[in-house]
């Protein structure tokens, strides 16, 4: 948990860049976060990454909060702050300034063309996130079964996911995984 200035700069530069590629929200960027944190920088292993995602999911608030956890894991409180700021700062500035001129080009043909490209890409990225997270969480056959059942249940019926998380936590605690 050493918070060397180099580590903080890596976190800042990396998440600031990544935020611009998070088409469809923070969860769309999960595969890239996993690639960096687990495969490139070896900040954590597969299980720890899945744990962070799980903790972020049970924390109320926006999905982007997983970035805070990764930052904390890598460089403590300062790391948490730097990572969060980097992931939110650039696009917040965009939102601030583009919000002022949005009325002028919201119906422009080029805006529609960009949107037409972004929507399918964001869908593909969420699918990619699902694949990466499912693989990281697949520590046992029971875990795989829980993933499949959760996917089917939350897809077909309207249920508060917290109940499913609670059930899965009990299954895990009972030593089923």
């Amino acid at each position, binding site marked *: *948990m050493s918070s060397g200035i180099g580590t903080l700069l890596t976190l800042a530069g990396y998440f600031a860049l990544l*935020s611009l*590629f*998070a*088409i*469809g*929200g*923070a*969860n769309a960027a999960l*595969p890239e976060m996993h690639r960096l944190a687990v495969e490139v920088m070896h900040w954590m292993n597969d*299980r720890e990454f*899945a*744990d962070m995602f*799980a*903790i972020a*999911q*049970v924390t109320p*608030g*926006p999905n*982007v909060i997983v970035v*805070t*956890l990764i930052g*904390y894991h890598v460089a403590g409180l300062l790391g*948490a702050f730097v990572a*969060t700021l980097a*992931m*939110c700062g650039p*696009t917040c500035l965009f*939102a601030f300034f583009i*919000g002022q001129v949005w009325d002028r080009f919201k119906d422009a043909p080029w805006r529609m*063309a960009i949107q037409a*490209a972004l929507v*399918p*890409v964001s*869908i*593909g*990225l969420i*699918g990619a*996130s*699902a694949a*990466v*997270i*499912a693989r990281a*969480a697949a520590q046992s056959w*029971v*875990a*795989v079964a829980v*993933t*499949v059942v*959760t996917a089917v*249940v939350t*897809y077909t019926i309207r249920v508060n*996911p917290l109940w*499913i*998380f609670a059930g*899965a*936590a*009990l299954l*895990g*605690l009972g030593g089923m995984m």
Partner: protein
Amino acid sequence: MSESTPTPVQPAPIAPNPLQLFVAFSLISVSGFGGVLYWSRRMMVDERKWMTAEEFNEAYALCNFLPGPNIVNFSVVFGRQVGGTVGALVALLGLLGPPFLVVTLLGLLYAYYGDIPALQRVLAGVAAAAAGLTVSTGLKMAGPLLRQRPGFAHALAMAAFLAVGILRWPIYWVLGALIPCGIAVAWWTRR
């Protein structure tokens, strides 16, 4: 403040002060598990009447257009509209402050107790369920696309999925290639 006063037939959007803005986004943040957008709409449009439904949809369209965390962008867009720079900052702090504190506390606990076998088993369970939730979110998002006739949009989505999710290529190269191609095709097929 004035939630219980009867609203006139044509409700003009009410402008909140910075404190109200901060409290509202804090509430949105802590009440939303994964579905923050639902809560933000409910509070902004239905409860506080700070925005009309059309204004909300407009702001939402903008936030979908921008990269990055959507709801975070939304807090900035809305905060700026009603309260300028201060409004944007206050809304952003309200949205991110509470979960930041909660999650760093959980991160601290994880750093100390993450190796306890019982906690590891609990997290393994939650992680598996959270992964399943992401799968179903992805399927729901893909729904409208799946009902269309297969075309270029399907190819784009599939390419992004395979390159990033299966082949594990860096997102920068993948999007750097796919998005310009996608925009070009969308532009030409539009005319």
